[in-house]
């Protein structure tokens, strides 16, 4: 027993790269998660664009009160709409109407317009809570007895629905993560399995050609990944009422592009990892890192700036953007052009690099 124990330890320590990866990668993932959730002692602040059409003391006071709880940016109405509807950088923008100060000082109620992206779900609710808090604090400042000085008019900028359920916010992210996990590991491990089984050398000299055979194997993973993604989202639809959008073609196109990029990521992991042992920590780190950076677990606004800057470079960001547009914003085929385009380009580049690395590495042996 002692001999087996010593042998296994020796084997483990002999593969220095696997050892390094199994230590470094968890540290990296833990750092990303910790940074995303606890990067600031005061907690992440929501971005709330404010359109100040009033320009009076009450709107100014509102802005100051809001700034205690959120990152307030005074913008024009067009810019507020862009931030909420197009860039999706903010869950909601507030419009303080002209004459707000006068009505407020007269003790008359005012209507504040809230331009929302319901796809941001709980973040929109958070903005509404901030609005109530602001009204309460402003009431305490300006008119301690009066109540209900503010009424709210909500306008959805990104679709027709005024609310999305919590499942619709969570299910797509988790579905993507599980497909990522299954496809990355499936793709990377199957490559190393061929080597461990001794069939890789035969494949390398097979008449069909190395690339064709590899692409055949990847094609199988791609189909499995697409089916898995469709089944997971269909389960979410049936079980939790998650919308699948109004365009089946958009849904299918996005799913295929996402899975293609994920298969390519799996191929890159297979190319980078020299051994099966290296594949496990590397693959796990890729899955977790991509899930965290891409917004599969939490909204991207909670992340620190450096993570937000990095986010466009990961495939999950684009897959999640497409899924959110499709499911939460009820957008169609046209809205898929950008995320699908980026995913396909991303996948092609990653696949090319992974195939090249894998071939160079294993042809040399």
């Amino acid at each position: 027993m002692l001999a087996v124990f010593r042998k296994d330890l020796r084997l483990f320590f002999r593969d220095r790269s696997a050892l390094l990866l199994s230590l470094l990668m968890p540290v990296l993932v833990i750092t990303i998660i910790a940074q995303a959730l606890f990067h600031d002692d005061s907690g992440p602040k929501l971005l709330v664009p404010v359109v100040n059409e009033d320009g009076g003391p009450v709107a100014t006071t509102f802005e100051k009160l809001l700034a205690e709880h959120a990152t307030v940016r005074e913008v024009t109405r067009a810019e507020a709409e862009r931030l909420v509807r197009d860039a999706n950088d903010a869950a909601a923008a507030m419009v303080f109407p002209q004459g707000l100060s006068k009505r407020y000082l007269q003790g008359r109620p005012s209507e504040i317009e809230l331009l929302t992206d319901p796809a941001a779900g709980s973040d929109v609710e958070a903005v509404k809570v901030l609005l109530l808090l602001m009204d309460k604090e402003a009431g305490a400042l300006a008119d301690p007895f009066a109540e209900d000085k503010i009424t709210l008019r909500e306008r959805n900028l990104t679709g027709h629905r005024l609310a999305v359920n919590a499942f619709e916010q969570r299910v797509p992210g988790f579905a993507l993560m599980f497909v990522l996990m299954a496809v990355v590991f499936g793709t990377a491990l199957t490559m190393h399995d061929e080597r461990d089984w001794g069939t890789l050398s035969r494949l390398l000299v097979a008449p069909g050609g190395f690339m064709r055979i590899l692409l055949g194997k990847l094609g199988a993973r791609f189909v499995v990944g697409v089916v898995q993604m469709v089944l997971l989202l269909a389960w979410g639809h049936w079980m939790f009422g998650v919308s699948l959008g109004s365009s089946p073609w958009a849904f299918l196109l996005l799913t295929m592009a996402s899975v293609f990029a994920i298969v390519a990521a799996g191929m890159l992991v297979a190319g980078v990892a020299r051994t099966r042992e290296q594949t496990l920590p590397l693959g796990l780190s890729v899955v977790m890192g991509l899930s965290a950076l891409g917004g599969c677990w939490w909204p991207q606004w909670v992340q620190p700036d450096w993570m937000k800057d990095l986010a466009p470079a990961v495939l999950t960001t684009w897959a999640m953007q497409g899924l959110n547009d499709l499911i939460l914003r009820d957008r169609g085929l046209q809205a898929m052009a950008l995320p699908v385009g980026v995913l396909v380009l991303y996948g092609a580049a990653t696949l090319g690099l992974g195939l090249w690395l894998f071939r160079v590495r294993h042809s040399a042996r």
Partner: protein
Amino acid sequence: MRRAVALSLALATALAARPVPAADAEGPMALTRRILTRSNEIVRASGDRKQKLAELSDLLRGFLDTEALADRAAHKHLAGRSPEEVAEFQRLFHDFFVRTYTQRLLLFDAPDFAYGAETVTGDDAKVGTEVVTPNDRFAVDYTLHRSPAGWRATDIVVEGVSLAQNFRAQFDAAVAKDSFQGLLERLRAKVATPAT
């Protein structure tokens, strides 16, 4: 003759030495202007909000006739109440109104005041003012009444809406929803809460 001159001089000296009541020295406009000028100095001065609130409250206590305001705002609810209840209401309303007014004044970061017309009719007067901000002007009219202590503000009309009427509507709603005792309870709670 010398006695008459001496008497006249003594009388003149006595008259000159007599303290002149503020009401006699200041008309409604002058009084309002002095109070607002001093308010502006307090608002613009360095110092924290609580300190400014305290200074403004001290300044306005002598200017606002909150008993008259309380009567305008809650006349029908005070009828038939015991003197203790009325006294307590007036005390609470005084603190509450002064706080409300000063807090509203503090909403304006660095206000400028413009002065309009002064209309005096017997013992009543109206003074028109405007709070001038970089983007807008807010009409604030003061209704004053001459009392033995001098001119005092008995109502403030912001953009055409009387604060007394505003409070009356709120008090009516509060009493209809609950009771006069409930209203007193709410005022006690509001006044007991430290000003923010």
